[in-house]
Structures are given as C-alpha cells and as structure tokens.
C-alpha cells in the first residue's frame, strides 16, 4: 500500500467516513434506529425515502446543534435536541406529503418516528455537541449514508423474497412463489438478524456484553 494512502487513513475526516460506513455502522454495529430499519424495509422505495429522510434530518440537526454547542447547557440539552430534530422531521414530512403522497401513505407514522430514532439523538449527543461544525456535518452525512445503504440492502432482500420484484419491477422467474411472510414482521426480524450475523463476522465486531 502506498504511504500516501496509509497517511490518508489517519486524517480525521477520512477516519470518520470509513468508520461510519463500516466499523461503526449505525445499524449493525451500534444497533441504533432499528425500529425503522425493520418497519419500512418491506419495499425498496420506502427504504430509500426513509434513508434520505433520516440522512437529511441527521445532517441538518448535527449542524445546528454543533453551531449552538457552546450555548447549550447540559441540563437542557435533550429538549434542545428534540425540538431541533422534530423541526426538520416536519420539513421531511411535508415534502414527502407534497411530492410523493403514495410513499407518505405507505410509511405512515414512521416518518414522524424519525424524531425518536435513537441514531439521530445518539449522533447529536456523542458527536455534534463536542465537535466542530464541519466534522459534525460530515459525521451526520456519513452516518446517514451508512444507515441508508443498510436499509436498502435489507429492503432489496425482503422485496425480492416477498414480492419477487425490486422497485416494482419483476426480477424472479415464473416458477417463483412469493414468501409473503417476508413482507411481515417475522421476515423483518429474520433478515435483519442474519444480516447482523454476516456483517458482524465480516467486520469482526465484538458483541456487546
């Protein structure tokens, strides 16, 4: 490996991106935001909408909280996180209702539940409150992308097994019988747990005690 590339791995911003996408991935390493990872991944379009929504809220709220980090006293920080996050969630909710009413209908209350997605609160409290604005924005973006690609992979597996399609396009041969259970809650649990198993082994993440 060239020395230049190795040096690059120690630059803070590069470190953040690689960690959030792989070793510290919100879902399979930190187990944050699992509710929506399970609930909206029955179709790929829902997962994409959710991923984009969460990424937007994550970046925006990280930037705002990082800007205000010297003014926020630690006693009231939770309330400030919540108000900031819910403001951006309202923006996402309105945009989705205006431009993609069918997806908004399908996801239903889960868009509002981005507010209690532990991922956003977790990043705010673990990173944005202590770091500069540019690093916080990067952290938000990288965590959001790490979250979104996991969601999309899970939703592709589930949609193919449950409906035999990806984004509504048929991909399975004629003889394929749809596994309807994959679109329901048990399927979500099984696919995510197998996904966790594979990725944790690959990334050599120690299970939490």
């Amino acid at each position, binding site marked *: 490996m060239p020395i230049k590339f190795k040096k690059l791995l120690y630059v803070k911003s590069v470190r953040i991106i690689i960690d959030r996408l792989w070793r510290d991935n919100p879902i399979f390493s930190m*187990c*944050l*935001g*699992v*509710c929506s990872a*399970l*609930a909206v991944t029955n179709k790929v379009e829902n997962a994409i909408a959710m991923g984009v929504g969460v990424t937007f809220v994550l970046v925006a709220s990280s930037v705002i909280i990082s800007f205000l980090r010297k003014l926020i006293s630690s006693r009231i920080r*939770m*309330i400030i996180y*919540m*108000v900031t996050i*819910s*403001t951006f*969630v*309202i923006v996402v*909710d*309105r945009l989705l209702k205006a431009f993609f009413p069918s997806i908004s209908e399908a996801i*239903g*209350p889960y868009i*509002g*539940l981005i*507010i*209690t*997605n*532990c991922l956003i*609160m977790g990043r705010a409290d673990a990173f944005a409150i202590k770091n500069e604005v540019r690093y916080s924005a990067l952290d938000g973006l990288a965590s959001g992308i790490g979250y979104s690609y996991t969601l999309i992979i899970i939703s592709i597996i589930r949609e193919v097994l449950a409906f035999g399609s990806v984004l509504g396009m048929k991909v399975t041969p004629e003889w394929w019988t749809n596994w309807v*259970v994959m679109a*329901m*809650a*048990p*399927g*979500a*649990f*099984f696919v*995510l*747990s197998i996904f*966790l*198993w*594979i990725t*944790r*082994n690959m990334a050599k*993440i120690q*299970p*939490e*005690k």
Partner: protein
Amino acid sequence: MKLQILSIFIATIFTHNIALTYLLGMCPFISLSRSLKTAWGMGLSVIFVVTLTGALNWIIYHWILVPTQSELISYIVFIIVIAASVQLLEMILEKFLPGLQVSFGIFLPLITVNCVVLAVSLFMVIRDYNFIQTVVFAFGSAVGWTLAITIVAAIKEKLSLSGDVPKGLQGAGITMVIAGIVALTFLGFAGMVAIQ
C-alpha cells in the same frame, strides 16, 4: 360502542401488537430484554407513561392545536409533552414515593426515546380516535409491548443458561431471531378481531 373498545383493546395486544406487528420500541426491546426483571420494570413504566401521554396529547391536540389550526407543529408539541411528563413523573416519584423511585426510576429517562410513546400519539391522530378509544388504545399498546418484551426476556434468560449461540449472533442478533419466532406465533392470532 363497548364492544368496539373491547376489540381495540384485544387487537392492540394480540393481532396488532405494537412491538411484533408494527416493530416499534425496538431499541429498549433489544437492550433491556437481558433479564426478566429489567424487562418487567421497563414494561410497567411504559404502561404508565404511554397511557398518561396518550391522554394528554389527545386533549392538547383536539382542544388546542385543532381549534388554532396549528396541526403542523403537532410533532414538536407531542415530543415536548412526553419529555415534560416523564421529567415531572420523575420528580413526583423522587419526592413522594422514594421506594418506587429505586425500582422504577432508572427506566424513566429512557422512555422519552422509546418510539412506542410517540407512536401511540401519532396513530391516535391518523386513526382519528376519540378520547376513550385513545386511552384504551394507549393502554393496550403498552400492555402488548410489555407482553412481548417479557416473553422474549424469559426465553433469553433460559437460553443464556444452556444455549450455544454463534459469536456474531450474540446480543442483538439472537434477540431478533427470538422476536421473529414470537412474532410468527402472534401471527396465529390474526383475524381474531379487526381494527381500522
């Protein structure tokens, strides 16, 4: 009317269980289902807080937000009501029931970020429930969640005594496998009662 309330109650526990059908409240579900005692303690506090905030949010939504046409900010209002009532509850417990505080208190700060609490308020708006239906729905959802987490915690406790879980699957992974199997059994209740 009475029948409808009963069917909402049964549906929220069995056929439309909030943890096993709507997949909500998963973060505490995964981290707190290690022992039966913790799961039960968290469940009891969830029942209390969810019923309380469900009723409060219904009153605020229908008496303040709808007349002033400010449904737009309902998310912010709901989450503040939840955070405030959790905080208030903590203070009341500390002041008047210190005995309960010891066993109950550690779970309260965690409840604010439990999606079940906010989800009940959002469902109540989407489904247009009246006050009594909201209270029954909130209570039933919380009882259903408690039921689910207690079942999973009991299985996990047994498993930790004798189970041989592969390394990558330990912790969150095996919890989800168990929850998936429990969710499959709960599918057997489907069709018992229907709610809109």
